[in-house]
Structure formats: structure tokens, C-alpha cells
């Protein structure tokens, strides 16, 4: 496919007149970084048709030096790759890709292969569809997505890969829908450092209210069988400010499947209860025995949650040596919004500066702004969309955090800045090179408690 035909949904190429194109200290990868979205599906393996460094770069940074999350089943940096050379640039890489796919099928055992292209293939115009098609016709579970780095960031790539799997692997569906079954489209795997734990908690609480959940990515997914079951679901749930909306709209058009969009990832009992009740209403499970069962689950979770909160209160009310009052959030829109709501509404912290770094499409930015303006009945806050860390750090330096230093919810890039401002840093997004993350979650009931532990261990740990 030529580059003219593709759809550039991100604003990556269109900075305003005084806004620089420069990005210092990156906060996302490029489209082919969505190889990690493939790696997030159990027993799926990406095949990368790109230069020799692309797979290594995306994996080592999005996964390794971001919580040290590991390579998963397919191998991280050493997934199949054409390692394109001058020959593929001059003569095209279609033959080489055919050869690689053929050899991959001999060597690797997977339930789904996803071919992702890089800049070289997309610029020289390799007809990747024609390469992949004969394999598909032979019944090989393989799809392709054109994810050259110039097309946008790894959020863009994620939606391209998701769509490729739906259109080329899941395919047409004429059967019944299963009431109470839901497909969840939420955090960007690997890029969000805590996605595994978070998706686990999201699945747990949705099942808690009686839903059957296709979580699709991560350790709680049952892999391609779950993807095949996408069209059976009663509805799609887009959980987050914007990522997944395009997929949900596509599924609506393709299967006539409706979707519920809840922009706020719930953290803490108040948010989570409201979220679950909204899903219940939408799913039509808000009556009779279903409702009773769901309410019992919510009540049970709340009881446990508030027992811990009560114990935490002794510390929160009595600790002598100072706790932060104002905070800044620098992160992708999903976490920035979720954290801000929790910090304001649960802990009573004061928002100082909110910067959203995932470059959301223009058409959703006003909605995101509106969410932050309505963070609480009595708290409204403005956000900025910015991806260049030099600019971000200047903005943080210029922020008046009042009489004591702030706590910054950010990334490794803010580590030195927090020191400079004599504040604290909690790394909550890409890159988190100073966090080792396994199953930790920050959302839902359980995640909120872990988040409290993290915040206040950081604070207390820095005391004398």
C-alpha cells in the first residue's frame, strides 16, 4: 500500500506554528510498537517486516526498561524479523517476507501470527497483503497490519493491529449474541506499565457483577479463542478516554454490536462502584436476581476496601512528618484522568498540573478536557497536551505548587526534576525504568490499595 492511502489519525505530523516538532525524552513508541499488542495475546507471535533494529527497539523500551515486563511467549526482541537490508530497499521486500513467513511456520508454534511492517516496507511499497494472502488461503492463522513508524505512535499501531485481527482472522459472524458477555478495550498493553495487573482486576470486578468477560490481552485472556468469540458478545466496553473507540465503532459497523464508553478507569471504591453500576445498567442486568448478585459483590468489595482504608486512616490523619498536598500528573490520558479523579476525590489532594502525553486524536481532546474540568463537584482543572519532555519540564518548573513540594505522578524522565523541586516521584507510565512490575495493579478496588501503599511508601521512605 502506498503511503498516501493510509490514515494518519494522530496529530504527529501537524504541530502548530510555534509548537516544535522535536520530541526529547520520548513517551511513546511508533506504530510497529504494536508488536507488543500482539505479544500481549497468549500464544500469538508478531512477525516484523522492518529494519534490523526495529523489533529490538520497541521491545527493549516499551517492555524491558518499562517495568521490566518480559518478552512473553514469542520472545520480545527476538521475534521473527526480515532484518531488511539494502536489497529489500532497492528491489522490494515481498520475496524476503514470503521466505520468512514460510520458515517461521517451520520453526515457531503459535495460534496466531501478525505481520507488522516498518518504515522500509511502507516506503518502498511492498504489497504485503499479496504476500500474506496465500498463507491465509492455506488456513494459516496469519494477518497483517501496515505499521510503518511514520504513520503514528504505538496507540495508532494498536488500533491498526486490532482491526487487522478482527477483519482478517475473526471474520464474519451471523450467529447469536450472548447476553452478559462483553469485550473489553482498555489500556495499551506494555506501554501502560501496569496493564497486566489492571486488566486482571478489571476482569475480576466485571465477572464479580455477573458478566462473561473477553479481556483479550494479558495473562487472563484465553487467547485466540476469546478473539474468535468477539462477535458473540452482547456489547463492547471502551474503558478509557479514547483508545479503543475506533475499534468499537468498527465492531458496531461490522457486527452491529453496540458499545459503552466509560472514559474513567475506576480507582477506589467510589469510582469502581459507580462504574460497575453503569455497566450493569447498560447490560440490562440491573434487575432481579442479577442485580442482587451484583450489588452483593459491590457491597462485599466495599466492606473490605473500607476496612483497609480505615486502618490507613490512622497514618493519614496522624503522621507527623509531612505528606504532599499538591500533585502533578504527566502521563497518557487514561491514567492521567483516572489518577486525578482518585487523588482528588479519595485522598483530597490538590491538582497542580496535568499534562497528557499520548497525543490523542484532535476530535477527542475536547471530551478529555471536559472530563478534567468536572473532576469533582467542587474541583475543576485544566490540562495540556504535550509530548516533548523539555517543554513538559519547563511547565512543571513554572508551576506554583504552593508552600511545599509536590508529588509527581510521571515517568523516569521526571525523576531528576522531582529532586530539583524537592518533591516525590511515583513512576506510573512509560517509561518506568525504576519499577519492577509483575502483577501489580492500580485500578479497581485492590489496585487502589496498592496505589496507596506505593504513594505513601514513597513519601515515608524519603523521610529522615
Amino acid at each position, binding site marked *: 500500500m502506498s*503511503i498516501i492511502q493510509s490514515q494518519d489519525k494522530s496529530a504527529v505530523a501537524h504541530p502548530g506554528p510555534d509548537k516544535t516538532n522535536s520530541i526529547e*525524552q520520548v513517551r511513546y513508541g511508533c506504530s510497529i510498537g504494536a508488536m507488543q499488542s500482539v505479544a500481549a495475546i497468549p500464544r500469538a507471535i508478531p512477525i516484523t517486516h522492518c*529494519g534490523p533494529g526495529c523489533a*529490538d527497539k520497541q521491545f527493549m*523500551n516499551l517492555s524491558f526498561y518499562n517495568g521490566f515486563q518480559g518478552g512473553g511467549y514469542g520472545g*520480545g526482541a527476538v521475534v521473527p524479523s526480515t532484518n*531488511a537490508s539494502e536489497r529489500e530497499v532497492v528491489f522490494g521486500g515481498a520475496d524476503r517476507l514470503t521466505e520468512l513467513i514460510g520458515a517461521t511456520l517451520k*520453526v515457531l508454534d503459535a495460534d496466531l501470527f501478525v505481520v507488522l511492517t516498518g518504515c522500509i516496507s511502507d516506503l518502498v511499497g511492498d504489497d504485503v497483503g499479496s504476500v500474506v494472502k496465500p498463507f491465509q488461503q492455506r488456513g494459516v492463522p496469519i494477518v497483517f497490519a501496515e505499521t510503518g513508524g511514520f504513520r503514528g505512535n504505538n496507540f495508532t499501531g494498536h488500533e491498526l493491529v486490532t482491526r487487522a485481527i478482527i477483519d482478517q482472522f475473526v471474520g464474519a459472524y451471523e450467529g447469536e449474541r450472548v447476553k452478559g458477555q462483553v469485550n473489553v478495550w482498555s489500556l495499551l498493553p506494555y506501554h501502560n506499565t501496569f496493564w497486566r495487573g489492571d486488566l486482571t482486576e478489571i476482569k475480576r470486578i466485571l465477572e464479580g457483577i455477573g458478566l462473561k468477560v473477553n479481556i483479550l490481552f494479558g495473562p487472563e485472556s484465553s487467547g485466540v479463542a476469546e478473539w474468535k468469540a468477539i462477535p458473540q458478545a452482547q456489547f463492547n466496553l471502551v474503558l478509557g478516554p479514547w483508545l479503543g473507540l475506533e475499534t468499537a465503532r468498527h465492531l458496531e459497523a461490522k457486527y452491529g454490536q453496540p458499545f459503552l464508553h466509560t472514559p474513567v478507569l475506576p480507582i477506589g471504591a467510589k469510582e469502581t462502584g459507580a462504574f460497575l453500576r453503569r455497566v450493569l445498567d447498560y447490560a440490562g442486568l440491573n434487575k432481579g436476581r442479577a442485580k442482587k448478585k451484583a450489588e452483593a459483590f459491590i457491597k462485599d468489595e466495599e466492606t473490605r476496601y473500607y476496612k483497609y482504608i480505615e486502618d490507613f486512616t490512622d497514618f493519614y490523619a496522624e503522621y507527623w512528618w509531612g505528606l504532599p498536598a499538591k500533585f502533578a500528573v504527566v502521563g497518557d490520558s487514561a491514567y492521567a484522568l483516572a489518577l486525578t479523579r482518585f487523588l482528588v476525590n479519595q485522598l483530597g489532594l490538590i491538582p497542580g498540573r496535568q499534562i497528557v502525553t499520548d497525543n490523542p486524536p484532535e476530535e477527542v481532546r475536547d471530551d478529555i478536557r471536559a472530563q478534567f474540568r468536572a473532576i469533582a463537584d467542587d474541583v475543576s482543572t485544566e490540562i495540556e497536551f504535550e509530548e516533548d519532555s523539555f517543554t513538559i519540564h519547563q511547565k512543571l518548573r513554572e508551576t506554583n505548587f504552593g508552600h511545599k513540594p509536590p508529588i509527581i505522578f510521571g515517568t*523516569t524522565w521526571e525523576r531528576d526534576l522531582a529532586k530539583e523541586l524537592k518533591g516525590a516521584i511515583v513512576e506510573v507510565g512509560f517509561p518506568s525504568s525504576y519499577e519492577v512490575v509483575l502483577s501489580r495493579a492500580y485500578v479497581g478496588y485492590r489496585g487502589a490499595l496498592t496505589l496507596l501503599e506505593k504513594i505513601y511508601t514513597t513519601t515515608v521512605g524519603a523521610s529522615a
Partner: protein
Amino acid sequence: MPINLKTSVVESREQRLGTIIGWDGKASDLSKESAYARGGCESKCGQKARRVCELNSPFTQGSVCSEQMVECQAGNVRDAVLIQHSPIGCGTGQVIYNSIYRNGLALRGLPVSNLHLISTNLGERDMVFGGVAKLERTIRDAWDRHHPKAIFIATSCATAIIGDDIESVAGQLETELGIPVIPLHCEGFKSKHWSTGFDATQHGILRQIVRKVPEKKQDDLVNVINLWGSDVFTPILAELGLRVNYVVDLATVEDLAQMSEAVATIGFCYTLSSYMAAALEQEFGVTEVKAPQPYGFAGTDAWLREIARVTNREGRAEDYIAREHARVQPRLEELRELLKGKKGYVSTGSAYAHGLIGVLRELGVEVDGSLVFHHDPVYDSQDPRQDSLAHLLDTYGEVPQFTVGNRQQYQFYALLQRVKPDFIIIRHNGLAPLAARLGIPAIPLGDEHHAVGYQGILNLGESILDVLAHKKFHQDLAAHVRLPYRKWWLEQDDPFVLARPAAE
């Protein structure tokens, strides 16, 4: 063949040295096939390096590109900025190289800070209309933000294909800003091995930073071409009354500029130092020390004596050598006892592996196999005294299973089955995860100086003892994982079976 600094594009390793990335056999056979061919190189090599037959497999796994090596060299110069002229994906590497930079600074006792890499962040429109205006803007940003002493520009696959004229912008802004603005041509597709990226960085530094007319000859200054490793060279060279000039990582632009004033150039690995050391000798008469690398007793002895010889300090080396031998001997005896019967496997860069295998043999560890990420049949100097593979063979004997492969994990399975090591030594990522799943622990050498010199022998021995204890973790894991490789593949004895015609 002489190094050509006249053009801004570096010649790739395969062009200059005949570098290969696929080979399997006995180390002695590879040595025979290589250009040195036991000392006869000068007459035989001619203007082109000798070719070694190479195995090309249709199945390949992700490698590493030249641009990444530029990031980890030019991007780690303390008072410079590296611009990545590319779509944002190349910039993703800022994360790992920042972590390496910070840890390297800490290792050397320097103030820790984030590195200075800036992406021009090219998008779809730029692929059609060109990205030069954005490059200019980013160069100006780099200057306004950091007032660096030099600005490097790393090219990318995308900018090479669309044909951006980087030279013109760089030249114009170099004049305007009054600092070197240095294009480094390092497109991933241009070379089959990432080490060309080392050469690309060094080429740019030689052309635009190193002082053409040295201000003063510094007779006690030795260039040490390394990465971010701990400072083990200062105390060693101080014994000879010499000072260390570490380049390229963690150096300042002035450190780089004064390389032409030094008396000699050394390194920890000829793979890394080959290009710049040879060019410094060719262009500025700075002697490249041509000796075995500083690993094990024989290598370190010969290396020290050669440094002493070329710097006219011969008398001072012998006393130090004798003292060090005596100092490390008692613990070495203990380590040899503790490591008796253990098998090791080395999978690192090429010349570095030659050194490490020697250290393992000094420790009494059996080394029946090794995987090197590429092989240079000759280094740039073409001087047989640098034939690190021959030194290994002559000093420590045969390595029966010697393999060249650019980090192909699928081949690593069969390689490990052949020798069944107790532990492996690695540098690049991607191989240890497989070994781990087979119950074999790895020593990752983040500090590349860990095994250098006499103390290095002990260091490595201690690290082996530490990692052998890890076996418990790995064997527990091995019982609970499934590999992604097909049964047919796992049954193959020949890791290159797909590369041979009979496989079809």
C-alpha cells in the same frame, strides 16, 4: 586498506573487513579462513578484505541496528546532543540508553542526569515532502535548550529512503552556530551488522571533532576506546605513569577533540576500537597498541608490555606484572578449586568473546562452545598482532563448537544442547531468556570492564560463583514453561539446517 575520512558516509564493516554473521565450526577453521591466515594478511588482503563463506538462513529473528550503536555512543557524550532524524520509533531507544547512561555515570562517579537525545519526530507528510525543515528546527531546539559543544545527527532508514539532504542543513548550521554539527550515516538497512554503527560514530568524530592540528602532544595520555564501564584503566595505566582519556561514552567533546594529542590508543575490545584506533594512527600518528587484548595472564602481560614499549616505559611494566601475578594467585587457586568441572558458554560480541573465553580457561572452566554476534576476518589495522582469535587458539587451544550468529535465539537452543553449559556469559539481550527457560543462568556483563586485566580474572570467577547459585531459580522455571519452538525445530542438531540446501 586505508580508512577514508574524506566522505561523510562510513564504509560498512562488510565492505572494509569482510564481516560475516553466519558461520559454524571449529574456531581453528574460522581462524584459517580469516584474512589474517596466520600472519600473512598484508600481502593477501589487498584493498578488500578476504571473504569467508557465510551461512544465510531464511528464518531470522530481530537483530540490532547501527543507529542503536550510534545512540549508545554519540548519544552518551556528556556535553553533546544527538538528534535522531527519524519517525518517533527510532527515538524509543532513548529509554534504554538513558538507563545505561545514568548507570554509567554513577559507575564512574560522575553526576547523574538524563541523556540528551531529541527526535525530529517525522510523520507521514514528511515522508512525502521531506523532513529537512524539521531537522533544522530540531537542531535549533538542541542549541537553544542545551548549548551543546557538538550536535550529532543520526540518520534513519526512512530519511535515507526519502533522500533528505542532511549534509546541507548540518553544514549551514555548523557555520551559524559555531559548533560541530555532525551527520552520522547509520541507516539500519545499510549494514548487516550493528557494529557498523560504532564506526559511523567514530567516523563523524574523526572528521569533525578531533583536532586536526594538535595543540600540544600529550606524551602521557592514552585514549581508551570503551563504553560506560567502571574505571579500571586509570589505576593500571597509573603504574606506567600514564593518564587515561576515555572515549566515546561519558566523554566530553574536549576529551574527543584531544585524541589526536595522545601518545597511544587502547581498548577493551577490537570490535569496538578497530576503526577509530586505526584512523588515529593513520591520520595523526597516535600509536594504536597492537597486542593481544587485556584478558587472562598471557594477554594482559603482552598488552602491558606493548603499551610500555610504545610509550617508552618498558622498565615500569615488569614490576607491576610480577606484583599483580603474585597478588591474584592465592584467590585464583581457590576459585579454580571451586569451579572445577564447571562448563561455561560465551555469547557476546566478537573480539570480546575471544578475551572472555581466555579468562574462563584461566579459571579452569571448560569452554566447549561460543556464539559470537559477528566475525571480522581482519581488523582495520590489518596487523596480525591484533589477531585476537589466533591469540585465543595459541594460548588456550581449540574451541570445538564456535558459532557466528547475530543473536538468533532459535539457533541458540541447539548450541546449548551441544555443550550443556552450567552458565552462560552474555552482553546483548535476547539469548539469556532462552537459556533461563532451559535451566541455565546467565552472567550479564553490563560493566564491560568486569573481566579486564588480572583483577578481571578474579572478578569473573566470583561472578560465576554468584550465578551458579541462581541455578535454583532457573531450574524451577524450566519445569514450568513451554518454548515457542516447534518440536521439529527442537530436534535439529544443526542450528543452520535451514541455511543448507538439503533442508528444502
